[in-house]
């Protein structure tokens, strides 16, 4: 067992599950999407991205790319939230909430690709 692989797999899967947890619920209902969960998703996604730094393989490069996409989407979601809450002061209207959640949905897609790639790599290694 390679401890590096454990940490790696753990963070990639955790990034997806947290992301999924945040995404779950009615699209425009702010009560169904908790800010803590978004925070956790952002942090874990950033860590997962950093973990992929410096991998020279083709697979590593694609994994890094998908993670970067996820982080970018989640940052956008957090930014929209922050702007709505503090700068424009509109609060979480259904329109804002749905755009935040759909952005996180995009991130989730990227995370799904990450996990699929991880599974493919694991299967190919056959060890």
């Amino acid at each position, binding site marked *: 067992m390679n401890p590096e692989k454990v940490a790696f797999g753990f963070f990639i899967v955790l990034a997806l599950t947290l992301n999924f947890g945040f995404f779950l619920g009615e699209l425009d209902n702010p009560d169904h999407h908790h800010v803590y969960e978004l*925070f956790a998703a952002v942090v874990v996604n950033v860590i997962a991205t*950093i973990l992929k*730094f*410096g991998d020279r393989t083709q697979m590593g490069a694609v994994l890094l790319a998908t993670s970067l996409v996820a982080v970018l989407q989640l940052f956008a979601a*957090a930014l929209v939230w922050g702007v709505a809450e503090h700068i424009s002061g509109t609060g979480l209207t259904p329109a804002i909430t749905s755009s935040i959640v759909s952005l996180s949905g995009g991130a989730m897609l990227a995370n799904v690709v990450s996990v699929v790639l991880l599974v493919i790599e694991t299967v190919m290694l056959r060890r």
Partner: protein
Amino acid sequence: MDNIFFLIFRRMRWPLITLVSAYSIAVLGLVLIPGQDAAGEPWRMDFFHAFYFVSFMSTTIGFGEIPYEFTEGQRLWVTFSLYMTVVVWVYAIGNILALVQDHTFQHAVNELFFARRIRRQREPFYLVCGYGQTGTALVQALTDRDQNVVAVDIDAQRVNMLKLQNLRQYVPALHGDAARPVHLLEAGLKHRKCKGVVALTNVNEVNLKIAIAAKLLHPDIKVICRADSHDVEDNMASFGTDHIVDPYDKFARHLSTALQNPGLHLLHEWLTGMRHQKLEDPIYPPLDGGWIVCGFGRFGGAIYHRLLDENIETVVIEAEPEETGAPEGTVKGRGTEAVTLEEAGIRTAAGLVAGTRNDANNLSIIMTARQLNSDLFVIARQNHLDNTEIFNAVNADIVMHPSSVIANRIRVLLGTPLLYEFMSLALYEDDQWACELISRIIAFVQDEVPEVWEVEINEEQALAVTEALEAGNAIELGDLLRDHRERDQILPCIPLLKLSKGTRVTLPADDCRLKVGDKLLMCGRLSARDRMEWTLQNDNALCYVLTGQVRAQGWVWRLFRRDETR
């Protein structure tokens, strides 16, 4: 490039992860701990404010507590996270600094810059592998002649020395093993502007590998190798190495030229001299009377066989005659003691060769021998460049320094290859011929050796002449030798060799016709070279030299002139 990113990311993984974790813990804590607003109502910090506060807290410390004054619980948490984030920052920054100072990292960065510089090289260059004594002398000589050089050496210290040296051209240098093709490729072996590879390392095997790599990866460039044994020489020759330089053989051949034909030897010394070198006096090694050769290594052996060919009676002094295969009648000893020298017959000898591998011994041999016989003709072998001063002081008739012999030969091979053709043709001429040529050269050089240069009649080097020839005009060699400012004046230079479609003519006559593609070897004063360039390249200068008329240069003037002639 890949390497550097890889290194940075690899090293920055943990610092970044700890940084992210510390930040998220601090932010989360601030959000979770209950606080109160200015009115004393319960209030919780949100992520936006928490992230803002943590960001400036860990880097600046001291913006105050925002947006409301903190409660005791919040203060406790902030104190804790303050220390945590500061420590994490120190760890991350320390890691980056350590990475920048890291030897592997610096090497990767240097290699990257080097490779990029080579890729951008737009002028022809030579690749010199091995920057020892020979390499130093060669690079100096090549850069003095405005040639571009790229150097590779396995020793980092020598590469650094190169940077300190005051060379006319910038010489990119790579610290790497030239025996590894990767480094040769980085140094531009396959670059289309790479004109030649020179392998000068101390190790024969490495030179061999460089030659093979160069011949396989870039077959049409010139490969020049240094070889110290006949075995390796044959090996290199077998796959078509262009030139193999053996300093001892080379020197022995010079010596036999000097014995047979002192004039030719002097001519050779003058023509192959470094720019601004003082003219040397002729040397006359004695033909009658015996010679003594101390040390029967590669150097002593090569000289001994040459002397035998000249039918000169030669005695060898060698400390280990059995191991070195010294000839019969060899006197056993080092030659540094008067006894051995006496035994070899120093009192009646005419010449002495101090050719051991040890500089101190060579000097000692010369000094002892001079005490016994002051009229000796002395050849000294100098092994280390550092000892130049003492070898100058001992005042030997010829000092043989292997590194400079190699460097000199390669410099001529790369700079003026026609000169070697000329010298090999000159070997068929007699002493009289050489002396006449020398007196012609003396007539125009002052006390420095003449400049030797090549001219090819093509569009690049002689645009005006090529165009005139293609237009059907006849141009004689003598026309090029005229001064473009005053055509009755003849430039202070001599054409040594004319190469025309495979026929080689030494000292071509003034009235021979030039053709496009001809190559000329000239020798003369440096100023003559510049003036000749005018005639070769400038249409008006050429026209004046050919006809004596100054042609109207502009279109308007030509219009007027046409009216006049009408």
